[in-house]
């Protein structure tokens, strides 16, 4: 009897459609989010994450309605990230049916927001998203820095120290994305995943770079991640969730089959 490692398909949503960027830039359409979420639910996904990459507020209403629609039909945990800047944003998403919210840029500019949100809503629903890039040269000990604005702006903040701080401030979970790897299909940055997972007591979700099923397994066995997140390998039908689970279970990873 043991806790299962989780597989989390991620839906990047823009103006009510699922899209997937390559290195956070190119966009490709992957369908209606409600249909996609239902499909993953039926396939046995352990959770579903939505990243609202919409810029404007009126389009954000579309996201709220989408979450409402999904939450009345999909009975597994739902996380919504993107544009979460104030407690009202969290309240709105939770009322729409989200179970957790992802806080990213707002945490970087105002870490106290994480503390306030955790106190008000409970740390179980606060996922702090960390977007980082490796800044150390080859051969040097690994160093990673937090980047904002879709990976364009460096902050000078060390990713591991930041993860420790976010745990202290009340994060319930860390969603760790390697911006170097995102969209590349070269696999997770296992070094930073392992370093952060080993440094904090809360669960870490590995994200960015999955191109095949071995990458998912490596995230757990080598990266010590508690959950693995992927988008395009599932959206475009290369692999199904049951295939991914069976593959990981065959490598001795505890899965919910």
């Amino acid at each position: 009897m043991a806790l299962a490692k989780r597989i989390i398909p991620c839906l990047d949503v823009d103006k009510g459609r699922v899209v997937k960027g390559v290195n956070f830039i190119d966009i490709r359409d992957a369908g209606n989010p409600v249909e996609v979420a239902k499909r993953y639910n039926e396939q046995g996904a352990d959770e579903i994450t939505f990243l609202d990459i919409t810029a404007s507020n009126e389009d954000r209403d579309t996201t709220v309605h989408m979450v409402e629609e999904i939450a009345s039909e999909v009975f597994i945990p739902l996380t919504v990230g993107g544009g979460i800047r104030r407690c009202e944003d969290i309240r709105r998403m939770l009322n729409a049916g989200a179970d957790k919210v992802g806080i990213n840029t707002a945490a970087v500019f105002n870490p106290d927001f994480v503390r306030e949100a955790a106190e008000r809503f409970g740390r179980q629903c606060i996922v702090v998203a960390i977007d980082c890039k490796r800044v150390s040269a080859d051969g040097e000990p690994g160093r990673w820095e937090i980047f904002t604005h879709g990976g364009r702006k460096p902050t000078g903040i060390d990713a591991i120290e930041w993860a420790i701080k976010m745990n202290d401030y009340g994060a319930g979970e860390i969603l760790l994305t390697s911006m170097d790897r995102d969209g590349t299909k070269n696999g997770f940055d296992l070094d930073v995943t392992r370093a952060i997972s080993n440094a904090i007591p809360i669960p870490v979700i590995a994200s960015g770079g999955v191109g095949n099923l071995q990458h998912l397994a490596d995230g757990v066995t080598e990266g010590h991640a508690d959950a693995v997140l992927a988008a395009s390998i599932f959206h475009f039908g290369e692999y199904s969730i049951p295939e991914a689970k069976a593959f990981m279970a065959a490598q001795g990873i505890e899965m919910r089959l």
Partner: protein
Amino acid sequence: MKTIAVIDYGMGNLHSVSKALEHVANNQRVVVTSDPDVIRQAEHVVLPGVGAIRDCMAEIRRLGVDKVVQENIASGKPFLGICVGYQALMQDSEENGGIPCLGHFDGHVRFFGDPLLDEKGEKLKVPHMGWNQVKQAHPHPIWQGIEDETRFYFVHSYYVEAANTDQVIGETRYGKTCHVALAQDNVVAVQFHPEKSHDAGLQLLKNFAEWDGKTA
């Protein structure tokens, strides 16, 4: 039409619980409410809850939900506690420096510990977050149609240690043996989130919605 009342005391996400109950309810309406009269008239009552126990207990007492819970349990109608709504039914919790709870069940809510270690001495993450297996320690109507050791979705940093093991109907190992489901007469309470546990969770909620509150 019969009613399932989900007690609203301002804590946490009641949307999921009510939506999941609506999904399985058969000729029953689901009402999210803090009105004692509505709750009194309902045939089934659910006490959900997420967040910190101090805030939950403070709201429960401020809104008089403690008395509503007591009264509805005493009336013999089926009553379901979920997550912090379960922990609130114990005597007390170690969270927030020690908080007295409603004391419906004998036993305590304890911290998982730091570090929390598994059988091999490896560190486990806290909160206990994700899908874990539940051993059905005693038979109960809510387990109907659910296989033993089925996985349910958990999120919690504190776990229940019940004093009376005869009341334990579900157990999970996570560094410790956690009593994740308790039952006595018309009351059943679970640590995991049936409303987020896919088919097995919906089956459990359906079993509850159809239950008459009797175990014999």
